[in-house]
């Protein structure tokens, strides 16, 4: 059992917490309603609301950090949202270290990306709409992490899904964007069903959906039900966080503008699954097998992501699969239970910095390359865009776990913890995570080499509209956020893990971080193993990619594993074959059944009556003698029947 913090009513500036999400929501609403009139100033309103939110979040953070650990969990009750008979769903907020951490991440990174977008989107006629949707996302994400009950969580959960849908499909005239957006929403909905069912189960067994009450009473629930709840919650997490088997939407989501990829599909929204599991840790603490499933899913995903990441040539897709893989690490971490919750969150934060930075860098590169995303057409860009190169490079180093950068502290801690899992699990989780770390180093190095080094493959090529490429460094509004995030990439890991700063801060929400003990490999060996594998990855990448020129056209005659990886390990094909195509057939078949079968019965009945009517009326021949015959017949029948009834 977890020790639950006492929940207090918020006071001081904390009671203004509702402004956190109301500000961006209002911004979004104003931008939507104002229409074209807001085209000139809309983006600044968007930036302003998020920055204000960030400032308020900081203020609340500092107020909270000034309080003692057992007073840090507070609630703000706004109004009764849904109340029927025994059911009462608050529209209320829960402010505790966990949610505040996320608030800072969301509004912080969100502010940077908003600022970045002012430059990035400056030529887009839909910029106002973009900021409206981005603000909507921030608001929904804040509701997700701030809500004090599962329904609020669900509100934010689907709210960010909507924002993600809108932003992926931002370029409305691109059919691929529309398809990707729809796919993202649908796969998220699959996860949402899990989340919804988990809520129903909690309600059925506990009669409440408030976190406080649920965590208090979860012990009364039978173990089987607890497992069911945890698995269903995990399904929700899988949908939102692009985990196996619902990972296929995330790479497609790169159809959205790059800032969106950075904010939503790297730093914040996709980590909501990690948040969910961390948030419901009192439930997961009760079930070993529930956590095992989580860890397994995380392990599978981190490997899948890493493998596929090696094969893509699309810079954003590589980063997207990298995200899938890194979230796999986080899920693995929270799946390890009390020894991993805080590690997962730490990696989440660090990842938020460096992956956002990487995406912004990628956006900057695309900006320079006329929105081309094919790395085979890049090359030698480091001279043309030095700031991008440096910030991107720092993010890259942080990601592959270069010593003393963020990834080194957070990812290695997870792998270390993974090895301590009992029995076979330690070996499986630990080794897989280590190998994936090596793969990560490989694909990221490949990406770096293909993008920034080697010959300038873009020189001989034409842009989509027939011109030539003129790579250039991006404007200040874009580079400044990248620089800030690069700082974060470098420092976050150290700051967060130094003296267990984050773990201590999160303890009221997640419980004390337990020290991992024992395990498959000694603690001293693990970092070296990971480092060695990563170095190997870098080396292999250099040998394979760096030493010879990269062909501009993708070679098609490749080995089987590469082919499989290029096709997302057949995830889309499987979805297509198992769900989409039979679904289409089923739908067509049902339309047929409905028209011919169900409606056919209706119309057939009518036709039956009509037909028999047409035949029967022929009996009315017009001959008076036949009428007399029918009368006589009727008479005989009536008389006979009367007698038969009487005398039988």
């Amino acid at each position, binding site marked *: 059992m977890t020790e639950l913090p006492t929940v207090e009513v918020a006071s001081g500036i904390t009671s203004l917490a509702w402004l956190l999400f109301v500000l961006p929501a209002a911004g979004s609403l104003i931008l939507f309603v104002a229409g074209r009139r807001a085209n000139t100033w809309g983006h600044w309103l968007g930036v302003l609301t998020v920055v204000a939110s960030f400032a308020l979040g900081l203020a609340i953070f500092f107020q909270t950090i000034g309080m003692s650990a057992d007073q840090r969990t507070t609630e703000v009750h706004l109004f009764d949202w849904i109340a*029927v008979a025994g059911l009462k769903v608050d529209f209320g907020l829960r402010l505790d270290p966990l949610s505040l951490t996320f608030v800072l991440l969301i509004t912080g990174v969100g502010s940077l990306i908003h600022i970045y977008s002012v430059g990035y989107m400056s030529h887009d006629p839909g910029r106002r709409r973009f900021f409206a949707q981005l603000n909507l996302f921030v608001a929904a994400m804040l509701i997700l992490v701030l809500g004090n009950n599962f329904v609020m969580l*669900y509100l934010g959960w689907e709210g960010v899904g909507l924002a993600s*849908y809108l932003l992926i499909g931002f370029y409305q005239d691109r059919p691929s964007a529309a398809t990707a957006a729809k796919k993202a929403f649908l796969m998220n909905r699959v996860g949402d069903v899990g989340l*919804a069912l988990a809520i129903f189960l909690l*309600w059925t067994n506990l009669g409440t959906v408030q976190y406080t009450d649920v965590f208090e009473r979860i012990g009364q629930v039978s173990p089987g039900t607890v497992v069911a709840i945890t698995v269903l919650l995990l399904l929700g997490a899988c949908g939102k966080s692009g985990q196996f088997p619902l990972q296929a939407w995330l790479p497609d989501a790169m159809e959205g503008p790059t800032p969106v990829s950075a904010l939503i599909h790297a730093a914040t929204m996709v980590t909501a699954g990690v948040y969910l599991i961390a948030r419901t840790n009192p439930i997961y603490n009760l079930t070993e097998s529930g956590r095992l499933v989580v860890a397994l899913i995380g392990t599978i995903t981190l490997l899948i992501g890493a493998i596929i990441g090696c094969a893509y040539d699309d810079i954003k897709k590589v980063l997207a699969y990298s995200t899938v893989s890194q979230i796999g690490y986080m899920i693995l971490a929270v799946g390890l239970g009390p020894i991993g919750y805080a590690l997962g969150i730490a990696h989440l934060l660090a990842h938020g910095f460096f992956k956002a930075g990487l995406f912004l860098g990628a956006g900057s590169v695309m900006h320079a390359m006329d929105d081309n995303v094919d790395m085979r057409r890049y090359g030698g860009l480091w001279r043309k865009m030095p700031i991008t190169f440096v910030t991107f490079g720092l993010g890259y180093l942080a990601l592959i776990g270069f010593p003393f950068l963020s990834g080194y502290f957070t990812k290695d801690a997870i792998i270390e913890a993974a090895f301590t899992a009992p029995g076979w699990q330690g070996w499986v989780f630990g080794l897989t995570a280590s190998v994936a770390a090596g793969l990560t180093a490989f694909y990221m190095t490949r990406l770096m080499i293909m993008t920034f080094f080697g010959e300038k493959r873009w020189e001989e090529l034409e842009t989509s509209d027939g011109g030539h490429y003129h790579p250039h460094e991006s404007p200040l509004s874009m580079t400044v956020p990248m620089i800030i995030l690069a700082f974060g990439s470098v420092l976050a890991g150290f700051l967060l893990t130094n003296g267990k700063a984050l773990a201590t801060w999160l303890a009221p929400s997640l419980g004390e971080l337990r020290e991992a003990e024992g395990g498959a490999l000694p603690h001293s060996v693990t970092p070296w193993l990971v480092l060695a594998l990563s170095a190997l990855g870098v080396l292999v990448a250099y040998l394979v990619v760096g030493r010879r020129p990269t062909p501009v056209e993708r070679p098609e005659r490749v080995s089987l594993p590469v082919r499989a990886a290029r096709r997302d390990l057949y995830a889309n094909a499987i979805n297509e074959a198992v769900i989409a195509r039979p*679904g289409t057939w089923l739908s067509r078949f049902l339309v047929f059944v409905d028209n011919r079968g169900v409606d056919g019965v209706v119309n057939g009945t009518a036709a039956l009556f009509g037909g028999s009517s047409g035949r029967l009326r022929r009996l009315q021949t017009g001959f008076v003698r036949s009428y007399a015959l029918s009368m006589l017949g009727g008479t005989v029948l009536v008389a006979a029947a009367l007698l038969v009834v009487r005398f039988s």
Partner: protein
Amino acid sequence: MLLLILLLLPLVGAAVVAPMKNNARTAKLVALGFSLVSLVLTIVTWFSYSVAAASSGTRFQLELSVDWIPAFGTHFALGIDGIALVMLALIAVLVPIVMAFSWEERIPEGRSAAGFYSLILATQSLLVGVFAATDVFLFYVFFEAMLVPMYFMIGRFGGPRRQYAAVKFFLYSLLGGLIMLAAVIGLFVVSGEQLGSGTFTWVDLQRMAASVPESTQIWLFLGFFLAFAIKAPLVPFHTWLPDAGAEAPVGAGVLLVGVLDKVGTFGFLRYCLPLFPFASKTLAPLVLTLAVIGILYGALLAVGQTDLKRFVSYTSIAHFGFIALGIFSFSSQAFAGATLYMVNHGISTGMLFIVVGLLITRGGSRLIGDYGGVSTVAPLLAGAFLVAGLSSLALPGTNSFVSEFLVLLGSYPRQPVYTILATVGIIFAALYVLWVYQRTMQGPLRGSAVLGALDTVGGPGTMLDPALSAKRSSGFPDLGRREIAVLTPLIVLILVLGFFPGPVLDVITPSVVATMNEVGLADPVGGLSQ
């Protein structure tokens, strides 16, 4: 008295408007005036209704009862509970919107706008009667009578296959109604046996319900159920709806799907459950099966539709499945959810219908395949479509979420299997809404309806040229002022009820709790929360 005025006012309006054949504008204004006065009166009614009194056991309020046909024991008895009140409110809100929407509707050759508006008012009046009747006979009378104006609306003002659709609608409903008549008569006879003299007064019949023999209950239940299942419509009695919905003029379609069909689900809740508690419980699995089939089947069919209006109709069939699921799951939350769902579905599907209507007015085609990339030329229209669609797929923050969530949450404790299947339905809901949105609104400009409308103004060209797109939009215009005015109240309601359903739920709750008592069941989860 208030209810009587609410009932008669639109009828008077209908009579006043009907003869104004040659002055369409006056007719429309007068009709709109009547509907707005009705709206005001409904607001007065809303505030006259006492939640406190309902909570303390008053079953009906604002009652009025006059002997009607003593020989049959019938009364002209009106009265409302919370469930009826929210339905009245829905009618009052939708009618002016429908009228404003239909303002420039193309009336077929030889028909007059006065006739159409008069029929809308007549429908409104009869619908008020249906929801406000507290006498089973009176209810039945309104139930059947409301077919007539709707029949004329579809048959006279509808699309190319309007005759077929109108006749199908009328006969199908009439068949259900007549079978219900058998049950109504049976109920009368049974009440004669049980109470000494036959009665139709709902309260008396409810009081007698527990002592009615079980087999009798089942037969009577089936009679009522069939009529309501056709009206609602539940699969497999639904095939009239796509036809009627597709051929009806949009305004009539809104009233048909938005309000008129709710009479079916309202009937489940007001008549089937309290009057035949035993049968309701016994046959609940049957109904639930139909409901869940409806959710999945309706959704899959919606995915496969090629006609926009049929598409909306099939989404409604799926939604009615949710409502039926809530009603036959027997918990306060599910009941309240189902009731709220009736209101919300009226708003969101009403809006979806209207938006589809706007689209069809512009493109002149009902086929989904004839549209594409509309958001490029008409972003507001696309946005409105999306809002309506999101409400239809029950996105949290929109009104439908609250009701769908309540239905599923309330159903789960008693019917986990059905609820799980129904919950899967929300994926399909997302699928059909987004897929249609993608095909009609997103992507490059395409489709004969869109291009045809544009070609009449300017030739095809690159779409991102703002000057050209402004020129193009005159061929396929974005929303005009009147259209924005029609849609705004709906959008506001969608959002407001999504975040603040409290006032409506407060009105509903005492009545559904009363219904729970009448069914004789306790909430499955009620005790735990204490």
